């Protein structure tokens, strides 16, 4: 009997279904569960109310990130509400025997940065967290997605959630990315083509030369933004790049276990002839450095282009106009040369070492523009140490920049890192929603290179002019 060709996604999904409910969701087993201080407390409260416990404490990992200050982390957290959430995470972890990397722990950092960097995330796993950018971990060939607090409670109490299997989409991009075009530009470009709801209901596999030639950091940036396309998540088949990245990480398998894992990991790919519910393809040649101009990540374009006319945009009606009004932009304006007030380098999208290296290539030998306030926030303490060891900090300091301490920071502005109302921020994070970076803040999403170019010129600048 011939076996039906299957996709990478099918292989991982199907091997984690414990029960199929007729006319209902699958009972889906979760290998790894990340929790942080914001979306977990009510789930723990739920356990208490129902008088049930954590079924597999060693499959859950806690880190504090969303609410943490990014300066003076050695001092007590000033905001009493934030301090309370951090304390709750610590207490709940201790109570149920869950690993906890709190503030000042050398392993602490943004959940989607520390998971991969410590080898907790591995190919073929199912991974969830109460944060939508859990999709980041898909870069390793894992099925990873964000869940709500009710589901956090489900995973804590049973290691399962109830999920209908999403449809499958493959996005293939062949060719070679041009000068100044980096990983972040790829998903921003896809978003500009398919909109912020273009992949709703799907799980994406990214395939083709562009992703094959990308580093693990770059792949994480791509999968991170799959959620912004409306997809449940995105994944990339593991290959030598993946294995090299994982080898020797703290929690990666070692010795015989490594060899055994490798055999399994090599089976994790889409068979030739496997079918997808939707297939899209783009060419690397069409991708320029990208920047967004509106209030959802789908409203972006090549940096040298003008803001599109409403008539040229799908859904270009009232919502589009409202979006431009919020941004203080007009149709058909040039984006290059727009004044910028803030630059944010960081988040689980672009807070890894490669992002800091990229930023440094542009600021090296230049000076921070006077009108710019720059927040450079490493994704973890490990990234922070790398920045120092590699001499990047010296380059940044010489150019007039300083480094903050790890955390989510201005990505969601839950701590004090808020962009003031009406100000423009070129941000390497993932969301440009109204008020996302602070009430009234205006966000332009872009790559670390575009952020660096804005940081040294004070205006939106094509990074290719500075490379």
């Amino acid at each position: 009997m011939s076996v039906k060709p299957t996709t990478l996604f099918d292989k991982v999904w199907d091997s984690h279904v414990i029960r199929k409910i007729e006319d209902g969701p699958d009972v889906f087993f979760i290998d790894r569960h990340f929790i942080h201080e914001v979306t977990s407390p009510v789930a723990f409260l739920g356990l208490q109310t129902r008088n049930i416990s954590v079924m597999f404490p060693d499959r859950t990992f806690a880190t504090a990130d969303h609410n943490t200050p990014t300066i003076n982390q050695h001092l007590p957290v000033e905001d009493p509400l934030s301090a309370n959430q951090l304390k709750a995470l610590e207490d709940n972890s201790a109570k149920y025997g869950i690993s906890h990397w709190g503030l000042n722990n050398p392993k602490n950092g943004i959940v989607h940065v520390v998971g991969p960097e410590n080898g907790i995330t591995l190919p073929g796993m199912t991974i969830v967290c109460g944060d939508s950018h859990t999709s980041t971990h898909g870069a390793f060939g894992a099925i990873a997605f964000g869940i709500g607090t009710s589901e956090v409670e489900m995973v804590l109490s049973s290691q399962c959630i109830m999920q209908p299997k999403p449809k499958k989409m493959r996005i293939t991009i062949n060719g070679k990315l041009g000068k100044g075009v980096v990983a972040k530009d790829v998903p921003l470009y896809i978003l500009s083509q398919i909109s912020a709801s273009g992949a709703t209901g799907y799980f994406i596999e990214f395939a083709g030369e562009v992703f094959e030639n990308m580093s693990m950091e770059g792949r994480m940036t791509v999968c991170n933004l799959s959620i912004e396309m409306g997809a449940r998540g995105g994944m990339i088949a593991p290959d030598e790049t993946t294995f090299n990245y994982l080898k020797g990480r703290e929690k990666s398998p070692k010795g015989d276990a490594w060899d055994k894992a490798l055999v399994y990991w090599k089976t994790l790919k889409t068979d030739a002839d496997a079918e997808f519910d939707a297939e899209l393809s783009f060419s690397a040649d069409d991708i320029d450095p990208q920047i967004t101009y509106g209030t959802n990540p789908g409203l972006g374009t090549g940096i040298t282009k003008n803001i599109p006319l409403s008539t040229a945009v799908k859904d270009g009606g009232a919502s589009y106009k409202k979006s431009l009004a919020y941004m203080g932009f007009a149709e058909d304006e040039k984006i290059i040369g727009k004044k910028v007030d803030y630059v944010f380098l960081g988040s689980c999208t672009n807070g890894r070492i490669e992002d800091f290296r990229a930023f440094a290539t542009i600021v090296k030998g230049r000076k921070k523009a006077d009108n710019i306030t720059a927040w450079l926030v490493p994704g973890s303490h490990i990234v922070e140490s790398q920045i120092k060891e590699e001499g990047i900090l010296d380059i940044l300091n010489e150019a007039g920049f300083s480094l903050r301490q790890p955390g989510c920071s201005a990505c969601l502005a839950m701590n004090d890192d808020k962009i003031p109302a009406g100000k423009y921020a070129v941000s390497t994070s993932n969301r440009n929603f109204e008020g996302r970076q602070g009430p009234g803040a205006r966000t332009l999403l872009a790559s670390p290179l575009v952020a660096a170019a804005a940081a040294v010129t004070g205006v939106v600048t094509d990074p290719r002019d500075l490379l």
Partner: protein
Amino acid sequence: MAYDKFTILKSSAVPLPIENVDTDQIIPARFLKATERKNFGDNLFRDWRYNNDDSPKKDFVLNNPIYSGKILVGGKNFGSGSSREHAAWAIYDYGFRAVVSSFFADIFKGNALNIGILPVTVSPEFLDKIFKAIEADPKAELEINLPEQTISILASGEKESFVINGYKKHNMTNGFDDIDYLQAMKDEIKTFTANSAY
């Protein structure tokens, strides 16, 4: 958390004819600092609803007394953005039991169902009819019949059916949740882990 059973809901509705209403608008991140589920309704649509000095913005629909009801009607791609269940809590705690749109973001839809809000997906044409009916009469009533899976505009009698899977429908009509279901499966889950790769 237990929620009220949902069978037939007859109510006027609050219109929010905006597309891509994202979770940061439904509840901004700075209101996610609680460790209990309390009073989230107060901050529903906070930045659209209130000025910086906490005075209500007159032109926002929740501040307009002519609109009320247990049904929120939103534009396409409702609930996009973060996984925060707080968005669904805020809607529920404010007093809504159903949200109607022509398109919901996945995670929001799942969260809503998990806490007892019924997301009703209608065709773009029907959504338009609902907005028009409310525009003509702010007190226009809608009826959402979960057992029959229909939504109607009572004044005109126009009706459309909607989709929901049998499992979730059973849960909603009985006020059950998934945790009850999973607790009963623990042995099966243990057996599964004995042979899993991780």
